[in-house]
C-alpha cells in the first residue's frame, strides 16, 4: 500500500469554467509528488513538491493566484509537519514569496521556532537566500475581479469563497 500521496486544491465554490483547470492542476501535482516517492524520496519532499506545484499554478488560492486582502494585497500562510519527529515549520502573513511552503520547511529545518510571521518571515527568507518576487506576479485577473466584487458593502466573501453545504 506504500508509498501513497493525497493532494487537495481547496474546498469551496469552484465555478464551472474553472473546474477543469482545477482538476488538471491537482492531477499534475500528484504526479510530480508521486514521482519523488517512487524514486525513494521522502514524504516531506513529496508533499513540498506537490504543494509548490500548486502554489505556482494560478488556478489555486496559494502562491500565484492567492486571494487578495481587503487592501488588494497578497498575504500568505503555509505549514509543513514531519510525522517522524513531530517537527513543524510555518509562515504566516508572508508577502512577495513565490513558494511559502518551501519557506515553512526552512523554518522547520533551520530554526528552533515553529512559526515566523510577516516582516520576520520576510527577513528570514532573505537570510536564507529565498528570492522575493513582485506582488504583482502573485495577483491574477480572477483574484482582482473577486476582490473588487467583494468590496461591495452587502458582499459576503466567506459565502462567495466557501459556497453552501455540499
Amino acid at each position, binding site marked *: *500500500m*506504500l*508509498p*501513497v*500521496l*493525497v493532494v*487537495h486544491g*481547496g*474546498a*469551496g*465554490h*469552484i465555478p464551472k469554467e474553472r*473546474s477543469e483547470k482545477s*482538476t488538471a492542476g*491537482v*492531477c499534475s*501535482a500528484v504526479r510530480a509528488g*508521486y514521482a519523488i*516517492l*517512487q*524514486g525513494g524520496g*521522502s*514524504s516531506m519532499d*513529496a*508533499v513540498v513538491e506537490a504543494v509548490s506545484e500548486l502554489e505556482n499554478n494560478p488556478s*489555486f*488560492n*496559494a502562491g500565484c493566484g492567492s*486571494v487578495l*486582502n*481587503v*487592501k488588494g494585497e*497578497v*498575504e*500568505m*500562510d*503555509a*505549514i509543513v*509537519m*514531519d*510525522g517522524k519527529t*513531530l517537527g513543524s515549520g*510555518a509562515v*504566516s*502573513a508572508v508577502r512577495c514569496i513565490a513558494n511559502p*511552503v518551501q519557506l*515553512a520547511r526552512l523554518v522547520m529545518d533551520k530554526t528552533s521556532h515553529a512559526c515566523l*510571521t*510577516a516582516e520576520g518571515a520576510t527577513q528570514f527568507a532573505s537570510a536564507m537566500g529565498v528570492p522575493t518576487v513582485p506582488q504583482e506576479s502573485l495577483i491574477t485577473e480572477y483574484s482582482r475581479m473577486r*476582490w473588487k466584487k*467583494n*468590496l461591495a458593502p452587502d458582499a459576503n*466573501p*466567506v459565502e462567495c*469563497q*466557501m*459556497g*453552501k*453545504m*455540499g
Partner: protein
Amino acid sequence: TVGAVAVDSDGNIACATSTGGMLNKMEGRVGDTPCIGCGGYADNKIGAVSTTGHGEAIMKVTLARLILFHMEQGQSVEAASDLGLAYMKSRVDGLGGVVTVDPQGHWAARFSSPQMSWGAAQKDTLHYGLYTGEHFTQRIDLP
C-alpha cells in the same frame, strides 16, 4: 488553499498546506493553515491530515488533530474525516475539506463544501475528483 499528505516507502508521514487565506480578509488576518493541529498535522503513529475551508471554523475545532484523535480511537480514515467535518458543521456551522492518510497507506479525500479538487496516487493508479461522490481513476506509468 492547497495541501498534501504522504507516506513514503520507509513509513514516514508528512503533511504540507499553503494558502492565500480568505477573500477580502483584514490585513494581518491569519487563518488555520499555519496553526499546527488546524491546517495540518502529521504523526507516524497515527497518520496525517491537511485541511481547507473556513479557517476560523477549522481553528475552533482544531480540525486536523481532531480527525487524528478519531483515528486513534479506531475510526477509519474516511469515518474519522467525516466525523471531524460533521462536528465542525454542527458545532460552528463551518464548511471545509480534508485529505487524510494512515500509516498503512489507507487514504481519504472528504469535504462538506460543494466541491474540492483532490488527487491521490498509490501503486500504479491516479485517483481524482471534484464534486461530491466523484472518484475517477487513471493508470500511472511507472518509472
